[in-house]
């Protein structure tokens, strides 16, 4: 009799513990989502009030005279283009290598290095590019900024490309080989097209990630108050502009920091949501 009630209370306790833990974990998830909503909501709230056409096209001005982020938007686009031109082909090539020839000890080393590079702080990349490019050139430059961003991008793209290519069924390769195609034709003509959408997705996410980078640009691209298209000159970027406005003591510049952030976040969220939408359809 007593042991029976004991068993019952024990069972009850176990059940209660279980539901308490479910509630707790749900609270954790709810908390994280709340933080996200708070951040994005606040950006929208503060940013929308300060955005207009002049702000989007003008160059920065001294306090009290308005000004805008036109040159920073252009600079960010140039930096993104430059880093994509360098980083995408290189990263994809490494990814193909890892996926199609990735069995040996050397490939294992490359895979390990790639993974570990993903976690190396981007500011260290900035320091590195400073020592090999800015010091010898004696000048901050858009080129240095683009290369720094490309270095951040490469390991991300390499690993997503590898994963996407591994998803392509072996039968496709075998079929192409059976038709007498050489291996390079099989990879470029059959495997790559099959994995193309996945690779594109990874590339877009990498671009989104890099577009938010500030630290590697601080002492490579540096920043500029003017419109600049020359690669050997310092160049402005949205993120560095946001940073400079944010740490300034002026309310007017703080408002501009929020508005610039809204522009940046719109780009980043758009890419992320688009990617999500398309991958959901595919997989």
């Amino acid at each position, binding site marked *: 009799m007593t042991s029976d009630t004991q068993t019952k209370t024990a069972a009850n306790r*176990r*059940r209660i*513990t*279980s539901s308490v*833990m*479910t509630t707790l974990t749900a609270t*954790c*998830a709810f*908390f*994280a*989502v709340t933080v*996200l909503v708070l*951040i994005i909501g606040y*950006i929208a709230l503060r940013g929308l009030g300060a955005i207009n056409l002049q702000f989007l096209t003008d160059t920065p001005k001294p306090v009290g005279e308005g000004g805008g982020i036109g040159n920073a938007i252009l600079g960010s686009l140039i930096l993104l283009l430059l880093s994509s031109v360098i980083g995408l082909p*290189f990263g994809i*090539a*490494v990814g*193909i*290598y*890892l996926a*199609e*020839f990735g*069995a*040996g000890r050397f490939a294992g080393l*490359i895979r390990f*290095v790639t*993974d*570990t*590079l993903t*976690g*190396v*702080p*981007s*500011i*260290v990349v*900035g*320091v*590195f590019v400073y*020592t*090999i490019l800015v010091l010898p050139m004696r000048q901050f430059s858009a080129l240095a900024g683009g290369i720094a961003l490309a270095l951040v991008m490469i390991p991300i793209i*390499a690993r997503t490309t590898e*994963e996407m290519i591994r998803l392509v069924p*072996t039968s496709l*390769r075998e079929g192409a*080989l059976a038709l007498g195609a*050489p*291996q*390079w*034709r099989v990879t470029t003509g059959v495997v790559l097209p099959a994995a193309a959408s996945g690779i594109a997705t990874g590339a877009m996410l990498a671009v989104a990630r890099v577009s*938010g980078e500030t*630290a590697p640009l*601080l*002492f490579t691209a540096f920043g500029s108050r003017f419109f600049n298209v020359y690669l050997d000159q310092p160049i402005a970027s949205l*993120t560095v502009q946001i*940073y400079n406005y944010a740490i300034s003591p002026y309310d007017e510049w703080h408002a501009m920091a*929020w508005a610039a952030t809204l522009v*940046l*976040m719109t780009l*980043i*969220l758009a890419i992320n949501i688009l990617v999500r939408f398309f991958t959901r359809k595919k997989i």
Partner: protein
Amino acid sequence: MRNLQPNAPTPAAAQGASARSWNWRRTLAPTGNTGDTVFRSILFACAFILLLIVIIMIGAMAVNSLPSLRAFGFGFLTSQEWNPIAGKFGALPFIYGTILSSLLALFISVPLSLGIAIFLVEQAPRALARPVGFLVELLAAIPSVVYGLWGIFVLAPALRETVEPSLARWFGWLPFFQGNITGIGLFTGGIILAIMITPIITAVVRDVLAAVPVSQREAAFALGATKWETTRVVLTNGAAGIAGAIILGLGRAIGETMAVTMVIGNRAQISASLFEPSYTIASVLANEFTEATGELYLSALIELGLILFLVTFTVNGVARLLVWSVAHRAGGSSVGRAG
């Protein structure tokens, strides 16, 4: 696929450029095919260049930090004085700030991330897990500088008005919660970091949990375990991977720059109080690198960069090995995600 091993490795296989799984590649791929040789060489070259970049990275930073290494030697790590004008450089305050802010971030983020991951993989219905999982991943998409902006103007004032005074009132007898309450300091830095590393730890733990075989859960349920007891079985199974995820988060926290720089106060001091301003290695790089005048100053900063690189590289390496050990044991890749 794996049991289709080749009998006679070609020269290409010997140099490690062939694959384990494709029997045809070694037997059918003709060694004399120029296209294949060129293709393989290009890809191999790219991979090799990547390795080279890492080596040059270490080399370039090591060479440039030689003046500082010569001047201070090992004392660089143990000296508290950071005085560019007097030409004295000691990294201890930055190391202290980096370690403390990262540990604080882990202290908050680990239970939170574990909770989220468990909820998403083990407990939430699929229809809920998908969107919630996506939203948590979006936290990782927010740039560091945006976290910093939000930290300065929203989080820091909020903490100054609410959380920090309460902590000082209830736990003021602890040395951690004494001193001026400004909202700018280690405490705010740690919280911002915690928010930033949560999506990363969560993502890896989700992968690890998803890699634990379903049979483990079925066995636990069959023995009459409740949902939570089953989850504990799963957690035990994925322990190494979870440890890896936490260390991965630590690596991120150590290297995180902009957000921390904007809220931690940037004062090179060692104080037990979490409310006091502090400084991290990454922050001092962000703040002082472009202003560094003189060879010794610059080289001291580059040495800090080198330390940061070596530490994060090691931390990440350990984390990857731990995560891999779980993912490989379960025989799955980290591509597929549950939930």
